[in-house]
């Protein structure tokens, strides 16, 4: 039998989400996913399996794609977290987001945040990833509607769109 810890056992944590600090009091067992969805009402990150099987809850933590359902919120203190809500610049969509719409890379959209976050991390690191790199990046992101071929096309298109943007990162092709 496990009793709920009293409120006082909640732990202060500051989550840095999309560039803003959010001081919170959370139970030690609260996952980053639940902290995002419940404490911060950032519901763009989706809960599907809650055990690291499906990729729907992927966020970027210190520039790495991670399953937020497998991270405890208290372990994310001071780490730099990007969620789907932080991908666009204001109302200007990220090339990936634009390409996902153009190529119909989703149907129901429930896996989309996770797909985009994983690819976002890839494209941050590689200006011109191979098709295999793209596929491998989202192999762990399940899409039950079966938008896979269009997800691959959208990622490829996003590479083009990114390169065409005037403020594109001048890193040489091939990335780091």
């Amino acid at each position: 039998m496990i009793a709920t810890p009293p409120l006082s056992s909640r732990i202060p944590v500051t989550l840095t989400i999309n560039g803003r600090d959010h001081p919170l009091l959370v139970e030690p067992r609260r996952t980053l996913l639940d902290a995002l969805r419940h404490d911060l009402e950032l519901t763009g990150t989706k809960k599907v399996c809650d055990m690291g099987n499906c990729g729907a809850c992927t966020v970027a933590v210190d520039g790495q794609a991670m399953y937020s359902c497998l991270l405890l919120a208290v372990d994310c203190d001071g780490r730099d977290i990007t969620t789907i809500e932080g991908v666009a610049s204001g109302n200007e969509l990220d090339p990936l987001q634009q390409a996902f719409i153009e190529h119909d890379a989703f149907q129901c959209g429930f896996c989309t945040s996770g797909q985009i976050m994983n690819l976002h991390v890839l494209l941050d690191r590689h200006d011109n990833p191979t098709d295999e790199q793209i596929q491998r990046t989202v192999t762990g992101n399940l899409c039950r509607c079966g938008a896979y071929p269009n997800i691959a096309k959208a990622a490829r298109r996003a590479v083009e769109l990114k390169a065409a943007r005037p403020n594109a990162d001048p890193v040489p092709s091939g990335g780091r």
Partner: protein
Amino acid sequence: MLPFRISQQGSGEETTIEVSEEDRVQTWPEDARLTVVGHGHGRLEGNQKVTGRARYTYDVRLPGQLYAKVLRSPHPHARIERIDTTAAEQLPGVHAVLSSANAPGITWYENSSLFDTTVRMIGDEVAAVAAESEEIAEDALRLIDVTYTPLPFVVDLESALQPDAPKVWEGGNISQEPKVYDRGDADAGLRDADVVVDETFTTASVLHNSLEPHGCTASWEGEYLTLWNSTQSVFTIRQEVAEALDLPEHRVRVIKEHMGGGFGAKQIAWKQDVLAALLSRQAGRPVQLMLDREAENLVVGNRPSTRQRVRLGAKRDGTLTAISAELVQARGAYLTGGEASNVSGIYQTLYKCPNVHTDETTVYINAGPAVAFRAPGHVEAAFALEGAMDQLARALDIDPVELRRRNYAEIDQTEDKPYSLPEGLRLCYDRLTEAIGWDTYQRPEPTGPKRRGIGFAAHDWAAGSGHPPAYAWIELNGDGTADVVTGTQDIGTGTRTGLAQVAAEELGLPLDRIAFHLGDTATGPYSPVSSGSATQASMGPAIRAAALDVKEQLFRVASTVLEIPADRLSARDGKILVDGDMSRAVPIEDIMGQISPATLHGRGARGPNPSDLAIRTFGGQFIELEVDIETGEVTLHRIVSAHDIGRIVNPTVVDSQVIGGITQGIGFALTEGRVIDHRLGLVLNPDLEEYFVPTIADVPSIDHVHVNVPDVKANTTGAKGVGEPPLIPTAPAIANAIFDAVGIRIRSTPLSRDRILAGLATAAEAASQKPEVPA
């Protein structure tokens, strides 16, 4: 006002009264030059979905909202002797607890109840808790003390059919009267045949695994209940929840904005919809109850497992003389409503045959209830029938497509009605053989242990026609924009976009001047459930009718403003044209500006389907693959798919539906299957770790070859449904391709590596024992 008809049939207590509204809209002719319909367009809700702003049921957050969890039976069959929820109720943060001890006696599943004291499957609802967080609700579940007396159980189809099997229900394990269909004399047909194929196939139970689970958020304002629900039918939920709670329907409002997939399993109310409402009433606060992945896979539906013995008889020239099918399917512990899972159907209709017998038995087992899953029944049956047809083609040494052409059905033989587009399937055969270059097709040579094969399968589908009743309203605003108001729902298929295109086309407005509203029983008129690939074909004509209604009013206003008779006016691209002359076009907003703030209101209803025609969807697929004879691994190379789905309203979205359906077909064929430990009754893979849905690496190049012939006799838009058809032929085409590659017929899904390796071993053994043929 549309012509409104009341028809009465039967007499006395048997009387049924039907109202229907004749559709006075002229059907778009086959060669109509349409400017919005027929053109690809991204989803209207795309921006919300790629930015995380689309609000799904799971994302509803209301002030004071509580979170509910359900305690579920750990036994496949047991009696609850005692249940004590005291400790759970006393846990700080818990606001409501429900169980058989205090819940109202609400009938559910035939003679069962909301909290039955007999549980008949692992996952059956035993108690429910609403608390301030999901974590506290989980803690509370652990504090509930239940004493069970386990009862004998049975979890597989074959054991359940044994005479001494444990009984799921007192009446026995046969859940419904066997469904028997006879046309002609199948036994005689088999006797008359030159060749008989006699094969038994089995298909595994598969799980929908919509990424958004079933669930809802319930909130009361006095006697009025609002339910945000992840559903394929807001109006069905309203009616079923109102009935369960003994509420009048107008006190229940159901909202569904965006949904993370349904695939058939979300077309009826399930227990959690009522539980959330009861918990919310008890707590006096909104309650969200979303199922976790395990419950999602245990209790809210699956595609039933089947066993199918198929006998086909044919003459040397390929003419079918008999089709006979003995069919058994496992329905789980309970019968559910919604779209029927008719395994018999395709045997009766896909091929022209004078002698057909089907016999379909449904069986209870102590496992989760079956419910419609994308082309229910047809997917299971096509695997068997199309496998048997492939076998027949080989036995007769006739090309598999040619064999199907020789047994072509132009009428629905069960009702003796012509098909609305009798050439539909033939067009699919033509386009497919052309696309794959069938006449000169050469299999690539084997490389090492890799053997290449190609397989074909055809399908029909009993649905896709759409149907009344379905209604739509259109408000033409003072600035020349329009609100299209419906009570339908977008289950992730692109409904908003396809239907807005129909409205835009008829109104003569650009798509970006239309707002499409759906998914709320309080604001939109009745729309049917989104199942049976029906939404586009049910709603499209209603929306066209509403658009025509409002457009005629607009022309009356314009006629007054412009002093030109209304019959000389037309609308295109946001403008009113005189005598079709674009150079004399007046912007619609200029006309509407004259009467603003008045608006024009159009109303449309879906007319009836033709009574003398059968409307169906058809299609087929070629699949090329490679089998590794050392590992049993199947690698798909290419899939070419064609479907008679009438006019393609939005090719972008339709292609996605085809690719998506095939992807689920790949899973059904190769990797998916619910696994139950027969000794424990435990589902071993109610998750996404051990239950293998296809990933991006499993899907080959998929070409959707557009047939795109409007079915002008079906409805005023000529469009039929595409949601279900593409999944139907995938598994048999893969199985047939495996046969083509390595000469073994796998008769059970999933067509797993172990089955392929076992088949190869058996074939090798048989070959080695073959007596030598004397020279």
